């Protein structure tokens, strides 16, 4: 059974408390489109709860209405007393408000889902925050193994169940992959009792967004996956495959110039830079 995580207390012991901020968003059920706790964000909260010394603060930036409250209470139901709400009108760039708040609080670890289940869903938020705060970012975590002396050891999820162990100096921002452990059940009692504490923050209008036209996604025909594999192992690999880039190379122990050269070349090849 999960320990009672209702009231994380600052301990007088030698182990310092780890200040964690879990960014949570309003999700959308893939079948019915109903609001819910977003799957990846909830996995992020679960990761935070699994850290023994963490004192976790739930933060949501966005609109606040009856529907979104219902969804956000799903996170409170995982055993939290309150959730900090940075209320933003529709069409705001929440990264600005979040960045200011994080600068203000100075947490050591920020955990977020890889991308939101609705809205832009670009997965850019963590990158924008990392750029603004100047913190390292690790994408696609499956687990946080250890946090000690300001360094977190994390497992990054790679395709086909592979993992890469990384060490990252805190403060850092991490995003969570669907390979992370599933979130615990959200219980009705704590969800109902929990409080959404609204902080007044300035909203920054998302200029780019307002110039876009939005329309519902068209269902596109899916290319059938033709499995040519002869053996069961190949079929399993094909079934378990994630999208993966064909090329790519890992550069280590190179000079900054060589590194920059390689990145410049890649961006040219991909057509990002012309």
């Amino acid at each position, binding site marked *: 059974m*999960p320990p009672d995580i209702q009231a994380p207390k600052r301990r007088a012991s030698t182990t310092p408390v780890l200040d964690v901020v879990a960014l949570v968003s309003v999700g959308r059920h893939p079948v019915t489109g109903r609001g819910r706790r977003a799957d990846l964000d909830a996995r992020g909260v679960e990761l935070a709860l699994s850290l023994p010394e963490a004192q976790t603060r739930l933060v949501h930036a966005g609109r606040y209405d009856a529907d979104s409250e219902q969804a956000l209470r799903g996170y409170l139901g995982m055993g939290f007393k309150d959730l900090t709400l940075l209320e933003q009108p529709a069409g705001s760039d929440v990264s600005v408000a979040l960045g200011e708040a994080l600068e203000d609080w100075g947490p050591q670890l920020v955990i977020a889902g890889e991308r939101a289940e609705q809205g832009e869903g670009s997965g850019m938020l963590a990158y924008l925050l990392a750029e603004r705060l100047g913190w390292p970012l690790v994408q696609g975590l499956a687990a946080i193994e250890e946090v000690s002396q300001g360094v977190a050891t994390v497992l990054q999820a790679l395709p086909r169940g592979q993992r890469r162990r990384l060490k990252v100096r805190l403060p850092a921002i991490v995003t969570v992959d669907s390979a992370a452990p599933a979130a615990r*059940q959200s219980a009705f009692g704590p969800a109902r*009792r929990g409080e959404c504490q609204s902080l007044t923050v300035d909203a920054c209008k998302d200029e780019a967004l307002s110039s876009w036209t939005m329309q519902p996604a068209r269902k596109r025909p899916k290319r059938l996956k033709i499995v040519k594999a002869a053996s069961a192992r190949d079929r399993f690999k094909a079934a378990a495959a994630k999208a993966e880039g064909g090329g790519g190379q890992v550069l280590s122990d190179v000079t900054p110039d060589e590194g920059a050269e390689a990145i410049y070349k890649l961006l040219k090849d991909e057509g990002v830079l012309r």
Partner: protein
Amino acid sequence: MLDTLLPILIAGALALAVVGAWRRVRLWRQGRPAPVSLLKGLAAIPRRYLVDLHHVVARDKMISNTHVATAGGFVAAAVLMVLVHGLGLAEGILGWVLLAASATMFAGSCFVARRRRNPPARLSKGPWMRLPKSLMAFSLSTFAITLPAVGLLPEDFGSWILALVLSAVLVWGLGEMFFGMTWGGPMKHAFAGALHLAFHRRPDRFSTKEGGEGRSTGLKALNLDDHEAPLGVETPSDFTWNQLLGFDACVQCGRCEAVCPAFAAGQPLNPKKLIQDMVVGMAGGSDAEYAGSPYPGKPVGEHEGSADGPIVARQGKALVDADTLWSCTTCRACVEECPMMIEHVDAIVDMRRFMTLEHGNTPNKGAEVLDNLIATDNPGGFDPGARMHWAADLALPLMADRGEAEVLLWLGDGAYDMRNQRTLRSLVKVLRAADVDFAVLGDEERDSGDVARRLGDEATFQSLAKRNIATLSKYRFKRIVTCDPHSFHVLGNEYGELGGEYEVRHHSTFIAELYDAGKLAFAPWKGGRVTYHDPCYLGRYNGEFEAPRNVLKALGIEVAEMERSGFRSRCCGGGGGAAITDVPGKQRIPDMRMGDVGETGADMVAVGCPQCTAMLEGVVDSTAEVRDIAELVANALVEAPASAGDRSQAQGPQAVEVS
């Protein structure tokens, strides 16, 4: 000498009993308040005891006669003893009646002793083993001290030694019967049991003189609007006081244990031990004193609790382990067998509610099923818009188009299940053959909330129920017909408290009515031997044992009954979310049930429940096929006779489409 000693002894025993009773009542009053009508309840004791309780006890004739003699003899002897020896009213007939009463009691206690010689495993041992001796001590000494009082023996018969010995035996008897009754001995069952009959939480379950059959099986709703009200039961004192009183009434006869499918399957549940654990929790202490069968796989003596301590610990051990509570299939076999009218299932669901609503600890697939119910209104997480795909070619009339119909056909979540879709298609065929004016809700239908409620998620249940009630209130229909006994039970017995009163029929009942009205005609049965499995939620929950058998009879099938059928039917293992929480045991409940089927030599088992179909059909290497009653009826349909009601003119079987 006895003349002076007896009144003192009797008065002393009675005084101690009163003190004990006061202490016992205080234990019960630790529970939450529950309104009862005091005088009406007390006045109802004799009828509830003599009719309802005796109806259960009399299923075992030997024990019922033993109990009548022992208990009847004791009550009479105790009252007369106070009059004769306590108040000295020995003149006239009273002394003689007291002699007869104590003699009857002694005869009864001999049978109690005989049963205790090689007691079956379900009986508790420990203090219960001394009970026949105590009964004899009381009855014999009462008999002996009454002999001089009626003049059969001279007043000064025997020496003072004899008087002393007699007094000692009497003290033993009085101690067990009066002192032990209220201080926690085996005789406690009489004191608590009588008051439990008076203040039962479900007064509706007792029969009435006016002919009410006495059935109350719907779970009671939690008040979710009151944010201060506790969500389920965390500690023993979270039960209502009359629930605690009910636990205390347990006589540890183990009839519940003998019929519990989870116990038989080796899952860690024993209803008797569970009730005793609640008593331990109420009084505070450990279960080490318990002298009956343990929860399978869990040694006695490792658990302890108190009235305000948790029943299930978040970590480690408390009074009861969580898997014990999640093993229950809510089949109500224990409640049906309990001579003390204890409501085990209510208590288990109360404790599950706390685990789900406060701890968020529904085991195994439970959390996923509940999330699906919240997000998609069905436990499988299927698209609500795909609910009617199975009937794409049937052009079923929709309530949304029609607005009214005589019969609303409630499909249940079996609409997503390919096996149950065959049953549904058969049922539609039968309804059409009988020209029934029916319509379905289609995509507007949601899960009835049965599984959510029994997994303890009262919030999701009430959300589903309220939305279903709102949908149903838009349309006009005479009755609801469903092939799912769980929906039947919830719609019929549990929606009422939330504002939805409906007349609901199980499809077997409805088909039986159609047949009796001459609207259906069947070809003669050509198959083999058939047995019938009573679904718990149809039989024990709703008392419908006859209609399915009548339908099978109409089909020309002679049912080869299983040993455990009717009100004693054994669960398929699929109720109460047990298939979802899936607590491991030594064997599977459906395997045992298919074993029961095999014993009858039947090569087909007729069922009337999608859950039972799924569970029984999941049994590997079974000797019998599983068919829903609707399928059997649809396969046997022939043209209805020209003159309704006269079935002898029915023509021979015609080619019938088999769907």
